[in-house]
């Protein structure tokens, strides 16, 4: 039975490669080579840490902990990456839970990601297996670490699978995704704090000392404890690891049993829409259409986590990012990065609703309405974007006492914001891409076969926005080097150039949309299947 599961997984892994052809396959192979090189580099780097044991210990402890957290949380954030994750697919087969569980464990160990993890863990084992006599122990620890990762990850995803099948559960997953993102930023900030003579930041060392007694940390410290003869501590570490594995195995078995024998209640209670203010705007002329479309966008930003979470993230990034990257004055200019990200919120406007676009195809088929629609989506991003930029700017200016650079920075920010929105509108007509409509993940933003499109469109928005902000940027440089008067020039130039870009973009986008509407529809409808 285990063999059948292994064969099934192997088929799934290889069929993905076989299903592609021509250029896609070449890109895929290039991607694999790059990924393999990255994994190889990481592994060699880890193995090289063997020479500096005082650094190797905290690094591997942190690595083990991060690895476990990533394995456990990834099903929630990116559920459905692996067909064998979903136990419901096996519900109707006459298999005992114990057999199923062993089969799934083996299946989970086959794939690119587990392989990459194995290779990296090998490097980690070399790093902590000092001297060579405890290397076998380190190797065993690495294997146990991988198994704990898989088992705990499957246990978590199985117990959440019925939750993730409902709309509310998936909405919750997005909130968790945002939480992880915030945690990650905090983690980075903590790791970078302070520093000592070994070159390791003090924050990282003290964190690792605490983590050393967590289950994965215990596994990472076990070889060195044995090597230094601290057998009692080593026994405790081994006990922690073994107990974790046993508990995780039991949890998984329990969750499997439960999920295979209870009926998921996917149609249960909708959270009602609430009493949103009905708009009274009517799509007569560009202005009216703009109001109707912007009204719906505004409503959905409040209601739909898929649209709300990016805004939370943008608000967070725009305000926090300047603190992280710029020490001292001039941080006001770093707000422009957040302004560029705002632009992406007007991006792929024809792809957000998947095949729901047909409703717009039936109602928006003349030039006036098409322009109104583009401007509506643009205004729905410009208004909250401006608020975010102004708040971030005020925070930076007050905190850093940096008022004289504000006009120039505002000029750059508005140019970047409006420019990115203009480019985002145009790109959504000429390079639309499907967005997964099953909403399983905040971060799964593309569908198979369209990753290149998605990436190209995102890059174009950031690059194009930066390009349109360049004139204001030049004036901003002059304001710092020549005379502060140039700051006001930057503000004026930024606003004028940005507004012009949006106006021009609305015309070009509308024309392009009307010309290619059925083709755009065909591309974005692919999002329904994912």
């Amino acid at each position, binding site marked *: 039975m285990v063999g059948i599961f292994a064969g099934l997984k192997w088929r799934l892994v290889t069929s993905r490669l076989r299903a592609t052809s021509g250029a896609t396959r070449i890109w895929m192979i290039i991607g694999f080579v790059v990924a393999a090189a990255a994994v190889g580099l990481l592994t060699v780097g880890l193995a090289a840490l063997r020479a500096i044991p005082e650094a190797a210990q905290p690094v591997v402890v942190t690595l083990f902990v991060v690895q476990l957290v990533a394995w456990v949380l990834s099903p929630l954030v990116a559920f459905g990456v692996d067909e064998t994750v979903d136990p419901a697919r096996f519900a109707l087969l006459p298999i005992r839970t114990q057999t199923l569980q062993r089969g799934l464990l083996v299946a989970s160990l086959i794939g690119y990601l587990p392989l990459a993890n194995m290779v990296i863990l090998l490097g980690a084992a070399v790093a902590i297996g000092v001297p060579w006599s405890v290397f076998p122990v380190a190797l065993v620890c690495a294997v146990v670490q991988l198994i704990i990762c898989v088992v705990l990850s499957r246990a978590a995803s199985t117990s959440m699978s019925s939750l993730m099948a409902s709309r509310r559960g998936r909405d919750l997953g997005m909130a968790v995704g945002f939480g992880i993102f915030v945690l990650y930023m905090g983690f980075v900030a903590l790791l970078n704090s302070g520093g000592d003579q070994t070159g390791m930041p003090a924050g990282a060392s003290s964190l690792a000392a605490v983590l050393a007694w967590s289950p994965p940390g215990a596994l990472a410290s076990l070889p060195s404890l044995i090597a230094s003869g601290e057998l009692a501590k080593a026994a405790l570490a081994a006990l922690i690891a073994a107990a974790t594995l046993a508990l995780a195995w039991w949890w998984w078995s329990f969750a499997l049993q439960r999920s295979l024998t209870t009926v998921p209640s996917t149609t249960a209670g909708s959270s009602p829409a609430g009493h949103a203010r*009905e708009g009274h705007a009517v799509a007569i002329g560009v202005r009216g259409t703009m109001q109707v479309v912007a009204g719906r966008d505004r409503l959905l930003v409040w209601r739909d986590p898929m649209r709300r979470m990016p805004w939370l993230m943008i608000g967070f990034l725009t305000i926090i990012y300047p603190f992280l990257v710029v020490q001292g004055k001039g941080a006001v200019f770093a707000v422009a990065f957040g302004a560029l990200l705002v632009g992406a919120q007007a991006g792929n406007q024809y792809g957000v609703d998947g095949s729901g676009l047909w409703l717009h195809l039936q109602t928006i088929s003349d030039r006036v309405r098409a322009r109104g629609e583009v401007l509506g989506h643009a205004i729905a991003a410009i208004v909250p974007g401006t608020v975010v930029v102004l708040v971030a700017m005020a925070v930076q200016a007050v905190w850093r006492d940096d008022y004289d650079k504000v006009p120039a920075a505002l000029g750059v920010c508005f140019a970047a914001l409006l420019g990115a929105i203009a480019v985002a509108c145009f790109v959504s007509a000429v390079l639309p891409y499907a967005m997964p409509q099953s909403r399983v993940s905040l971060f799964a933003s593309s569908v198979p076969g369209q990753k290149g499109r998605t990436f190209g469109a995102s890059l174009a928005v950031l690059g194009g926005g930066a390009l349109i902000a360049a004139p204001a940027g030049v004036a901003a440089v002059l304001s710092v080097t020549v005379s502060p008067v140039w700051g006001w020039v930057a503000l004026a130039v930024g606003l004028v150039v940005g507004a012009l870009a949006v106006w021009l973009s609305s015309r070009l986008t509308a024309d392009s949309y009307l010309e290619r509407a059925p083709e755009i529809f065909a591309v974005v409808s692919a999002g329904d299947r994912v």
Partner: protein
Amino acid sequence: MIPHYPGQQQAIRAAAGQAVALRGLTKAFGGRRVVDAIDLDVPTGSFFGLVGPNGAGKTTTLSMVTGLLRPDAGRAIVAGIDVWADPPTAKARMGVLPDGLRLFERLSGPEMLSYLGRLRGMPASVVNDRAGELITVLDLDDAGNKLVADYSTGMRKKITLAAALLHSPPVLLLDEPLEAVDPVSARIIRTVLSRYTAAGGTVVFSSHVMALVEGLCSHVAVIAGGRIIAAGELAAVRGSAASLDDAFLNLIGASDVGEGGLSWLGSSPA
């Protein structure tokens, strides 16, 4: 856009009296002709059934008529307007219910109707009055402020039908409107459609449930392999066959399906 070869005006004149007229409509996917030069006339005021097995080209044909899929060749004329030459006017004259496409999932039913009506340029008060009536008649009052994402299949078909009727178009194009719909919802949809044709509207709908088509339609066209095999008034297409079902199976040459083999069936488990 498709080539603007001469004959558009003649085609439109020739289609006078027809709610929908297709002329040489063709679509190929990967070299295979899914819809193969279809000619079809749908008389104004008729209840027109488009029947055929799965994969016959029904959805592809309707998608080209509604402006969702660009034809490789041919014309689709709806209410006197060439769909691919003047999409805005043509789309104002049709109401559409596609099969298996998403809606604006995070709006409630009333919100979606209000949005679409106002997007068509109808005054807000008219939109609200009509939307309210449609929701009551289609028995969607209970749904209240539920999001469309949480609607059942029958409710989705009904709210889509409401959106199709909202601007009171002369022609309705419905793809499998009663597929996977519960009996009560199906009865409601049938009643509303009958009232619509009684008031002078034209309904074109696709289905593979013969009994349904036989009970509802005045006209029928049988489509298989991307071609029209028979078309006309229901009685004429049925001919001497006992039912439309038999006539259909004879027409597509599949009267002895499901025979042969399977001798082990029902003998013992495993």
